[in-house]
């Protein structure tokens, strides 16, 4: 409880800092927390906001589905086959640390403007961390579980579905959390350049018209939704890790 209050105090300090920045930088640069909240409230009441919101989150949904399915499959295969895992790991890590935005033109050239480009861009951001986490999770499964599976005469398929996946689940949730954040980032970057719809577009559009409160309201809402989803996954993550410990 005290921790919760401390966290609230910290949040209040952040809002205070924001207000301070507003006083320092002026209305043109930063809208005050009050004005931003008010604009956010207004926008939530409009249908067009929800259209953009749906656009962004459906792109996120598709991208995340691709990233999770693809990443987990790649990670499982590489985790179960030791040599492939050793070969692939540094390649994956380097792909992870690559500024994927440089590949954006390529994605646009392949997919053209619109939904599919956003989805593809989100997916390439999310798939690699999910693959890395999954591979790590499978590789760190206690060897005695595999021995147990052999003693109990499990088939390959039973091994994967009843031992490997359950054993890896806590780590998979951690990977999902990272994958979610990066996929959202990818989708938003996609929207910032190559779209006429979505929250990323709203931000860029607001910049174009120097509508600072709108821009900040959108960013604020995005951040809140993202943090809420991430916090839910974090809660799940900690519970699962706790049970495994």
């Amino acid at each position: 409880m005290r921790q919760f209050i401390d966290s609230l105090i910290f949040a209040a300090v952040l809002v205070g800092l924001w207000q301070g920045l507003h006083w320092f930088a002026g209305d043109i640069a930063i809208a005050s927390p009050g004005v931003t909240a008010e604009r956010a409230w207004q926008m939530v009441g409009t249908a067009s906001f929800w259209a953009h919101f749906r656009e962004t989150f459906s792109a996120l949904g598709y991208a995340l589905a691709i990233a999770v399915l693809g990443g987990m499959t790649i990670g499982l295969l590489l985790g179960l086959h030791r040599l492939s895992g050793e070969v692939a790991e540094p390649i994956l890590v380097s792909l992870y640390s690559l500024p994927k935005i440089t590949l954006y033109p390529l994605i646009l050239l392949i997919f053209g403007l619109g939904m599919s480009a956003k989805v593809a861009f989100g997916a390439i951001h999310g798939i690699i961390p999910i693959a890395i986490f999954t591979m790590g999770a499978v590789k760190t499964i206690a060897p005695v579980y595999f021995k147990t599976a052999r003693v109990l005469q499990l088939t390959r398929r039973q091994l994967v579905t009843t031992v490997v996946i359950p054993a890896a689940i806590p780590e998979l949730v951690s990977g999902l959390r990272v994958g979610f954040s990066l996929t959202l980032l990818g989708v938003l970057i996609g929207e910032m350049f190559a779209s006429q719809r979505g929250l990323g577009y709203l931000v860029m559009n607001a910049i174009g018209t120097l509508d600072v409160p709108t821009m900040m309201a959108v960013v604020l809402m995005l951040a809140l939704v993202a943090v809420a989803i991430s916090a839910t996954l974090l809660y799940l993550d900690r519970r699962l890790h706790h049970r495994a410990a």
Partner: protein
Amino acid sequence: MNRVVWIRTAVVVGFILLLELLCRYGVIGRMTMIPPSEMATHLWRLLQSGRANADIAETLSNVAVAFASAVVGGFVIGSILHSVPRLRRAVDPFLATYYAIPFFAFYPLLVVIFGLNAAPIILIGFLFGVVAMIINTMNGLDRIPRVLIKTARVNGLGPVRTAWLIKLPSAAPQLFTGIKLAIAYSFIGVIAAEFIMSTSGLGYSIAFAFNNFDNRTMYALMLFIITLVTIVNAFFHVWERRIMARRGR
């Protein structure tokens, strides 16, 4: 070199050759991608002509500043949070969900505040890298075995020598992870910021080339960034391996 390294090299080379063939035989159209060999020759010419030098220098210096401040700042903040448990518990939920915040959406805001110069770019790189360093610093400090601290006390080491001789080396693996992430994230942050809105730098040049249908320059620069980041990564990978091997892990 061992077998794994050979196979890995073969996989990468094979992939590049495949791309080359697909591009040469028109399976991938020229409007989409040029063959890797052309990217390389064009990059070579670009580097020789010196036209890209200013952009390269600018991007690299931005990355360097963002990286250095993220590492130093992250280490200091991480150490402070580690030593004030109450503050740490209060901040913890914010750190844990930090990377869920879509940073680049903040970038335009920073441009409005700081103007269209290097400051918002470096700041994005810093913001992207610093939290990874904070988290890993705290992890590293958490994992120092208590018995080592006791050994330091038994041997009569003062706080400074304990920090330097005991805490730093035993937290090194996690600090290293933090540093690796910080460099990767600084690169990502800086180049993305340049790409989104800027007047110079590698990210900007790629975006500019893209908008002007100058695929050769665009792919040459993309190749440059990919190669550079890969080399930096490989360097850290090898270094880390060495350190960890000495510790028998």
